[in-house]
């Protein structure tokens, strides 16, 4: 017998929400294991702050006066403000 649409809806909710939770739970574990393994076996010399939205590129060890660079970045930033709101 073809299940009613309500039954189908409940099936969808049950299996759907279940899968979402199972998947994300697995992801929590997998992520924790990955992070643990990386920091245990392959630690990086200088960790990067999670909070920093953009990482300084390795090549940017300033050969330019930081003030001038700041001025330029401000200028580039203002210039960009028009283009990427």
């Amino acid at each position, binding site marked *: 017998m073809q299940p009613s*649409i309500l039954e189908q809806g409940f099936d969808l*909710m049950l299996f*759907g929400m279940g*899968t979402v939770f199972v*998947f*994300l739970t697995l992801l929590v574990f997998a992520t924790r294991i990955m992070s643990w393994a990386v920091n245990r076996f392959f*630690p*990086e010399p200088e960790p990067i702050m*999670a909070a920093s939205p953009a990482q300084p590129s390795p090549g940017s060890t300033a050969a330019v006066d930081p003030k001038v660079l700041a001025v330029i970045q401000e200028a580039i930033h203002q210039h960009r403000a028009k283009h990427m709101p």
Partner: protein
Amino acid sequence: MDNLLGLWFESGIYQMATGQAGMILICMGLLFLAIRKGFEPLLLVPIGFGGVLANIPGAGLAFSAAENAILAGDVQFLADVTQLLGAEIGSTAKELVKMYDGADYAIRHQISEMAYAADHHNGMLYSFYSVAIASGIAPLLIFMGVGAMTDFGPLLANPKTLFLGAAAQFGIFATVIGAVALSAFGLMDFSIADAAAIGIIGGADGPTAIYVASKLSPDLLGAIAVAAYSYMALVPLIQPPIMKALTNEAERQIVMTQLRPVTKREKILFPLVLLVLVALVLPSAAPLLGMFCLGNLMRECGVVDRLSDTAQNALINIVTIFLGLSVGSKLEADKFLDPKTLGILILGIVAFGIGTACGVLMAKFMNAVSKQKINPLIGSAGVSAVPMAARVSNKVGLEANGQNFLLMHAMGPNVAGVIGSAVAAGVMISIVQGMLAG
């Protein structure tokens, strides 16, 4: 003189139906909201504009060659089509178009060929829709660009915020129940596929919603996309009352411990871990999450910055223009002006509300069972709507404690919500297609 009459019969004023005029006004309203009120303008400007174009009477921009041929009304062609579709003799063009849309692939293919042979063409917006959305490509490329813009740092620093992203997806499935209930009680006529496509509005994620709707319920795509983007823009109005109602002042003042530093290597490996998990557990989510992970890997791996840059800029911009116009093609009056649209708009906002509530409640539940307290205000960010929902968490948090910046903490559940709705999308497409086939 014939030409003059011809031009008059062709002019929009003569042909304009009330529905089309109404839709043009509605689309102008969307443009107003996008431009003046800042409602997700990157999408709603092209969508609204595409909606106007789709409703220009006589231009047929949103119709396929076959539909345009039927509407052109050549007597012999109509007779042939009537016979092929097995329609009653004397059916109107609109009835034939409706039957054509519902017909089998083989018959549609045959009528299409007849239309091409009679020198009719696919409308511009129809072509855009075929290439950009029906193929699935545009939402996937946008998702790749979103992946390239996403920083999983806060999530990696505190992986359990993934549970908040999971909980908020209950908005999706509660809405599915709402939609099928409306059907079961005879108030609306939603199929299970329609219900799933409507539910995904609760995922608060534009490209995911468009992707699912294009697969399960293309006719409702216009209303679903408009609802999804509009409510995403309304997150700062929808969420705070719910968040405040479900929390007390003390909970809202919880200060969270600073996030631990996350290394570059973890960031590089995370999209690969996610990809492998998708491969092992949920192949049906592979297109969406695969492209998302690719974008994120290009961002983090540090050796293909020029590809990542293009994915975040030129490519996503180009795709956005076509995606918006294509969605606009589904704002054609005959498809949009339907009681179902009202149902979709109501169910959509309910989905947002339930998702928000479940995120907050999950955070409170986690506080009840765990020692490390989290501020329940970041739970609401689990609906995604990146980064608006995280900003709302931050703002409501600052109202309770002016020194408590929750933004970074809320980014974790926020991006978790993106993964969560992509998972929900994959599982819904897979289950519903199984139900339709079975």
